[in-house]
């Protein structure tokens, strides 16, 4: 009983995979549009989250204040924020009756950027804090001897750890682009407006339109793999080039 069923799924899979390959090869307009929106939204979110998270992480790394341990624990805990909960909270904030309702952002790409920013800013902050603090241990006395103040030291170390932080940014982008829960809720998965790779995959799979879902899945996988390769190559190159 199981065998024919498995064979059916397998043949559907291979047929879908062929169709998916054709869609990618022919740069199917619908596929290109969805991939483009996905990349745009996640890139914007990563940039905004970097502007918030990296300075924040560096500042916490080089300063000493009461309650610092708690701040770090909260930052680390927020790395695991559940996307659907973030989506729900942003949804409530942006909905017509919500405090930010009059901006009319719900179900727009901007809302998705906000949700992904909230999701990955803590990740960037926590990883930047760890990276910069490791460097701080090595540089602290030298920078103090040169008369560097806390803020200046944070900026110096952000620049000095730039290649490690590039890896951190890629990790944040990878998380954003592969996330489905938050963008589904605040974007609404509207065809041609807020439909991104992950939400499309979820929808098309449930509809049974596997070629598009698989095509997008392949693009997403390749993208995440490529990001990791780039991250690794950057680390190796920087290590050899700058020590």
């Amino acid at each position, binding site marked *: 009983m199981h065998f024919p069923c498995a064979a059916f799924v397998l043949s559907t899979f291979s047929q879908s995979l062929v169709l998916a390959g054709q869609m990618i090869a022919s740069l199917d307009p619908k596929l290109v549009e969805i991939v483009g929106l996905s990349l745009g939204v996640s890139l914007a979110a990563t940039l905004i989250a970097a502007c918030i998270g990296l300075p924040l992480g560096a500042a916490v790394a080089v300063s000493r204040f009461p309650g610092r341990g708690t701040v770090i624990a909260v930052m680390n805990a927020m790395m695991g924020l559940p996307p659907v909960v973030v989506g729900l909270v942003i949804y409530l904030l942006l909905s017509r009756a919500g405090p930010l309702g009059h901006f009319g952002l719900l179900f727009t790409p901007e809302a998705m950027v906000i949700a992904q920013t909230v999701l990955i800013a803590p990740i960037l902050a926590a990883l930047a804090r760890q990276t910069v603090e490791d460097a701080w241990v*090595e*540089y602290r*006395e*030298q920078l*103090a*001897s*040169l*008369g*560097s103040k806390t803020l*200046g030291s944070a900026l*110096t170390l952000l*620049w*000095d*750890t*730039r*290649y490690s932080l590039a890896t951190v940014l890629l990790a944040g982008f990878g998380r954003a682009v592969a996330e489905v829960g938050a963008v589904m809720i605040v974007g609404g998965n509207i065809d041609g407006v807020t439909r991104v790779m992950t939400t499309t995959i979820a929808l098309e799979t449930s509809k049974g339109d596997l070629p598009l879902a698989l095509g997008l899945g392949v693009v997403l996988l390749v993208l995440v793999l490529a990001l990791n390769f780039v991250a690794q190559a950057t680390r190796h190159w*920087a290590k*050899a*080039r*700058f*020590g």
Partner: protein
Amino acid sequence: MADDAHAGGLPIVARGATYASGGTILLADVDLTLERGGRTVVLGANGSGKSTLLRLLHGLLTPTRGTVQWGGANARPRSHAMVFQRPVLLRRSAAANIRHALALAGMRGADADRRIHAALQAVELVQVSDRPARVLSGGEQQRLALARAWALAPDVLFLDEPTASLDPASTRAVERIVGEIHAGGTTIVMSTHNLPQAKRLADTVVFLHGGRIAEHTPAEEFFRAPNSVAAREFIEGERL
């Protein structure tokens, strides 16, 4: 400047300076006055408190008891520099490392460029000025750290065992550079556990034993006839 007795954060005066960390006393009851001009070598075995003393005198550490003052002031002067045992260099070019230090001292532009070039020339590193600092050899990195300190034209230069992890050729280069920096009018305070090096460089010896100053005497006298038993044993031990 010469007629102002308190210029350049000198003399450095420690009174009953004690430093403890995690319940362990690393340095106890240090009374020490360092005047302008000389080369003071802080000598002692590993763990005798040399690094702690230098950090207290440079103001990187605050004594847990007692005081350290610089030219009568309680604040660490900007015109004192330090070179560490392991050079700490930023992930940028050799020249940019010096530029960073000069910028922190408020020096930019053509004046900074001149100083960078002169400092790199003095330590014979002009040819690698555009190379990333952290891929230079250990000896080159320490020379660059010296050039960075030299470019600041410090009144006092602290050196914490600057040759401890270097080969003989690099050690000689570092000693030559320290000599030239001193000849330029900088007061030198250097720690080492290397007796021959102390003999080559010291005008005055501060001998540390078990976190206390056992002896503070002119170098010639120290090596000829040490006053303390600990110093005698240290010198004897070196001869074995």
